[in-house]
């Protein structure tokens, strides 16, 4: 890994620094949709940060801006001390929809970023197989996306985001299409990868317990225009285990976040 990990990674110099970020989408009638308003956020290197907020509050918009595929209207975004100008090879992105290429096999889909970035083919194939077996999809390497369920496609999308061993992982509701059991397993796997590779993760979820379970920090957003209502530090010990879901500390965090939703008039 290059530039990102070379940057001095201390508490005082966060990996991502967002200030006064605004996003307006132009509409057909020459008006604007104010999607993001005055976003201030810094993400420490190696942190696991989750975002919760009502539907349409701009979570995907924020992730797309960080992925370098959407222009911001104003404000500054710095990643590893450098002004964000476009997509980066250090990034892995899981999109809200799986977005697989239907004419490629599952394995070939996972390899898309590796091909684009010219990574070693043999090594990447090996890694792709490992990732697929990690998400429970070994044996499906040569199937086509059309033959997979929505949840399986979403897991392929997760493998694709991890293939280039990104230093910074952006995940937009990666587990939305999964059943509760698979979801818990995937949560634990993700935490394992995160701890092993020391990546930084920014993950959007609609599940408040999931947000708390995974995170060092939970970012709570308000309805449109999306602002940051609060950033809650989660001090639960690591490594996180499933029984923690039932501890009183866990419940307190979940309640604190849920209150935001209720007062904002939006439900989870």
């Amino acid at each position, binding site marked *: 890994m290059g530039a990102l990990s070379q940057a001095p990674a201390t508490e005082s110099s966060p990996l991502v620094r967002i200030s006064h970020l605004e996003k307006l989408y132009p509409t057909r009638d020459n008006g604007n949709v104010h999607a993001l308003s005055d976003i201030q956020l810094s993400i420490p290197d190696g942190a696991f940060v989750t975002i919760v907020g009502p539907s349409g509050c701009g979570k995907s918009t924020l992730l797309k801006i960080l*992925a370098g595929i959407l222009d911001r209207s104003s404000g500054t975004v710095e990643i590893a001390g450098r002004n964000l100008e476009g*997509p*980066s090879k250090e990034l892995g992105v899981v999109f809200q929809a799986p977005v697989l*290429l*239907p004419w490629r096999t599952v394995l070939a889909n996972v390899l898309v970023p590796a*091909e*684009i970035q010219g990574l070693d083919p043999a090594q990447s194939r090996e890694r792709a197989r490992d990732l697929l077996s990690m998400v429970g999809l070994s044996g499906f390497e040569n199937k086509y996306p*059309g033959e997979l369920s929505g949840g399986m496609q979403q897991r392929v999308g997760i493998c694709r985001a991890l293939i280039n061993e990104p230093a910074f992982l952006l995940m937009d509701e990666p587990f939305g299409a999964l059943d509760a059991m698979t979801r818990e397993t995937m949560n634990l796997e993700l935490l394992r990868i995160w701890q092993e590779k020391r990546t930084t993760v920014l993950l959007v979820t609609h599940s408040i317990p999931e947000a708390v379970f995974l995170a060092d920090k939970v970012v709570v957003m308000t309805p449109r225009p999306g602002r940051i209502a609060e950033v809650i530090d989660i001090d639960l010990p690591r490594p996180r285990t499933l029984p923690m879901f039932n501890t009183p500390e866990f419940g307190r965090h979940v309640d604190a976040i849920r209150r935001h939703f209720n007062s904002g008039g939006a439900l989870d």
Partner: protein
Amino acid sequence: MTEIAAREASPPTVPAPALPAGKKKASWKESRLVSPSLLVIVLFLWEALVHLLGIPAIVLPPPSAVLVSLWDGIASGLFLPHFLVTVTEILSGFALGGGIGIILGILIGQSAFLERVIYPYVVAFQTVPKVAIAPIIVVWFGYGLSSKIIITATIAFFPVLANTIVGLQSVPREQLDMLRACTASNWQIFRMARLPQALPFIFVGLDIAIVLSVIGAIVGEFVGARAGLGYLILQKNFTFDMAGVFAILIILSLIGVGLHFCVMFVQRRVLFWADSNKNRITGA
């Protein structure tokens, strides 16, 4: 002649990729049974009417006479050289027109700017009836194969071009976002998403083009030729051999249907993923 002009003047411009849906497949079995029986009934009625009403053979030959003429033409070896000439014209014209259509489509499809600049001229050219410019092409390129190939190409290229352009622009924004997020170059995006995404559309264009190519070759031969099935139709017309004309029309239809199935066959091979993709979209 007017019918030919009418058919080529109204090209299906922006067809959705007509991929066989599950529904079509279900009725396919029944149609395989009903369709031939319908033909037999029509032929029988035709034969009966011609005999009952005493219609002269130079106005409308009975199917039996057409079949005899068809068999004679094949067995005597009369049709074969003309058949080969016409098929050569059709395939060469189709390849030339289809090739130009795809290449020009890719060039124009690259940018909205090029489309605005070039496409109006292409449409203007398309609105000129090819029957009307066929004589000019014969004057320029002579009575041989090349003039027919070029006439065929001018007719075949437009549906391929129009569909290529639409297809290249049909890439979902999510796919573009995904590839751009992986730092894909424009060429990589073209190769990995635009072109595969355009293929179903291109095949729709090719399928229309192959059928139009048969018409193109015959139009060319009508205007001026020394060989080919269209030339043979004119000959038979002069000698009032109506059964012979009908026999050749049957051969032309068979060529058209056969080539259409060839395109379909290749399409199914190349677009193996498209069908299950359809299911994915409706299932998601």
